[in-house]
């Protein structure tokens, strides 16, 4: 069965027709909306590469049915710079060299933005890092990512 789907994606209204009930949000975002920045890794909720924000909450898009978020506001890596928190995180990652191949990077950025929104900017680094354990990286060994998190400004911009 297929149904229409309405989403607000990075601030833009998108109306999609005939989206199968069984479609994963990951595939809707990548193939219908053409936003390839959200990555497909394991497709089983283990790696976190598919993390995006649904109504500001970090979510594994590979384990979410598209229709379950009908009407929601999505933020993907392509739109994260619209928010000062998003830009801060991108900047911190760039300065800390917290990426190599870059495949896990969008997932980490979105997961971290979600955490900052949820816990606030003053959340201790150790707690933020503990809460990032759901995102895997194979290149960096995580230390540069930890340095990026530690270097985040703790006051409002």
């Amino acid at each position, binding site marked *: 069965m297929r149904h229409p789907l309405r989403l607000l994606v990075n601030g833009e209204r998108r109306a999609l027709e005939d989206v199968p009930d069984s479609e994963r949000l990951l595939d809707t975002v*990548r*193939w219908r909306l*053409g*936003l*390839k*920045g*959200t*990555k*497909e*890794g*394991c*497709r*089983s909720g*283990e*790696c976190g*590469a598919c993390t995006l924000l649904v109504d500001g909450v970090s979510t594994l898009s590979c384990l979410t049915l598209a229709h379950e978020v009908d009407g929601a506001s999505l933020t*993907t*890596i*392509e739109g994260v*710079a619209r928010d000062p928190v998003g830009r801060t995180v*991108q900047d911190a*990652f*760039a*300065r*800390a*060299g917290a*990426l*190599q*191949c*870059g*495949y*896990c*990077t*969008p997932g980490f*950025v979105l997961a971290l933005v979600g955490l900052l929104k949820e816990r606030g900017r003053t959340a201790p680094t150790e707690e933020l*890092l*503990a809460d*990032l*354990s759901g*995102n*895997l*990286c*194979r*290149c*960096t*060994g*995580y*230390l*540069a*990512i*930890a*340095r990026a998190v530690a270097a985040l400004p703790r006051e409002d911009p």
Partner: protein
Amino acid sequence: MSASPRPDAGPKLDGTAVFGMDLDAPGMLWAALVPSPVAHGRLRSVDLAPARALEGVVAVGAADLPTLLPGVGDPDRPLFPTDTVSYRGQPVAAVAAPTRELARQAARAVRVDVEPLPVVSDVEDVFPEWPGPAADASPHVEAHVRARDGDVEAVFRTAETVVRETYRTSSIHQVALEPHACLANVTDGIWHVRTSTQTPFGAREDIASLLGVPEPSVVVEGTWVGGGFGGKGSALLEPYALLLAKATGRPVKLALGYREEFQLGRTTLPSVIRMETAVTGGRVVARRVRLLLDVGNSLPGRDFATGYSIGFLLGPYRAPTFEVEGYAVRTNKPPFGPHRAPFAPQCVFVLESHLDHVAREAGLDPEAFRAAHLWKEGDRTPLGQSVGPFGLASAFERARALASRWRAEAGPDRGVGIAVGFWSTNSGAGGEARLRLAPSGVTVVQGEREIGSGSVIAGVAAVAARCTGLSRELVRVAYEDTARAPFDSGVFGSRTTAAIGRAVQEASCALFGELRKRLEAPGLVHLALADGEVVVRSEHRQRPVRELLTEAERAAGGIEASGRHFGKGGTIDERKVEVGTFYPYTDFTGAAHVAEVSVDRGTGTVRVVRYAAFHDVGTLIDPATASAQVEGGVVMGLGTALTEEALWSDDGRLLNAGLLDYRIPTLGSVPPIEVTFLEGFAGAGPFGAKGLGEPPIIPVPAAVALAVREATGAHVTELPLSSERVARALKLL
């Protein structure tokens, strides 16, 4: 750490970087591979009709190859087997369909009729005892190597202490986060494929050979790569995607699911290693090493592992009398393929653990014992190569000093271990690069993709900056596909910065020669920035580059100069080789690592509390990417050391395909890592640089194992050091 962000940070942080998995084209079809359901069997039939009955599905099998392909391909490596299947998942057909779901469904619909044959799942199935002279005739022996110097048995008989041990190491996977993926299109006789690859030219060669088409008719365009670690170093999916593109006349996308990544992946397979060492008067007097390496469904003549890796069971230590023998044994698994520093971390784990054990058995201080035997510059390797500039002994001394401090601070149930390793900067066949000088700066035109390590985008840029004298901001590294780029062997073997860097050096010499002519300057010229553009200066003159360009060059973007570097290695003493091929080293790169662990004596769980890595780098080309390689390599090594293990069943099935049951390190398990670079012992790369992509992973499992031994006395002779194995070694069970 990094003053300015990597040049590729932008697209990777804003989502615009396109990886193989992201490839898309209008009218594209999705492909899927039809896997063999058993690990070994006689193929009776492959019935494609049920797949073809689905709307929009095109299916190809062995019978279709003569119509689709002009040539014969490689008889040793048929795209689809016609009589025997040799590993589970081996592609026996391929399908294309309008959607990914339909392609999967079509692949499942194909009826594969196989008569099962006995499965060889383990090297010890083939050789429960060490192979005898008849072994060479066995169809399971893919390669056999042996070398010796002196009579090991005679020395063993009269030695004070002889220690004999058997070790076992596991299969591990590269686990790049991005699965293999490509998009193929065949038009006007050009077989074009965009793909996530470490080796565009290597892939081109493979594809041409597998499809039986001339190399110039194959164009490989690399995308950004979501990790390779050796797993994307040859053509895997591309030939199938191209075949289907030919069959359908449409672009065809083939991407693996994550389970398939594990099942089809070509990587390090298990081994059994026997080590025997004799000691007299505190010195090693003889050593014997025996290696049984599982190479899966590897093809005859393709073994590189045995003759190369076996050296890491001997060096970097001197042994007056030795015998080394290895067998590459075929089993019903996918072919052995390169992982980061292929099989070296496993060898070093075995060698360091063994020598540590030998010292303890002989009543000697383990670290002093190892230090006394380490190669120094000018020593001869067991196979007679002269050891070039080698910083390992210095690195080891630095490591020992640090380890002493850590030991003094360590509490109960803690231990500190030191391990050393060495590597050689691979040359590959060589590489070419072009430098294009424009008024705005210089571009390195070359054929390698930046796969993540920074070796291309930063390392090569750094070399070009040094060669040309321009600042980094004025240097750009451009990637071109195989039709347009100069040849290079690929991003592997820690060779990239060295090989392309050398080619850049050559190109730079040619460029400056040309600039001298154009400036009509007798002496040296150099480049500088003046009024916002690049100028060429000699002692008495200066002209902007802009004025020195011909019309054609203005149109082409600048003056171009080409450089080429030919790979060369050392030579070994063939008189010591009795059987098979051994490989020489091009340079000698050392590493000494220190691990401090805390062991839970109730459960056997090992936690690495802190870590230090000392690396002999020759000349540090780009500090930020160098540190990043060490951190990344060490953490990958921690996975090999503690948690990574691919489990194979007796019927050749991979039991833990997938990230849930195959565990790579997570953020929470990473210790602080101190990184120190030692410069001054020159290597094969530009300005004396040594390759750094692989050395950081090599000593890690050994360092952890020795730390565990120091903490608890537990001597584990298998990898990984799972909590259960440590619990057993602690006699908890």
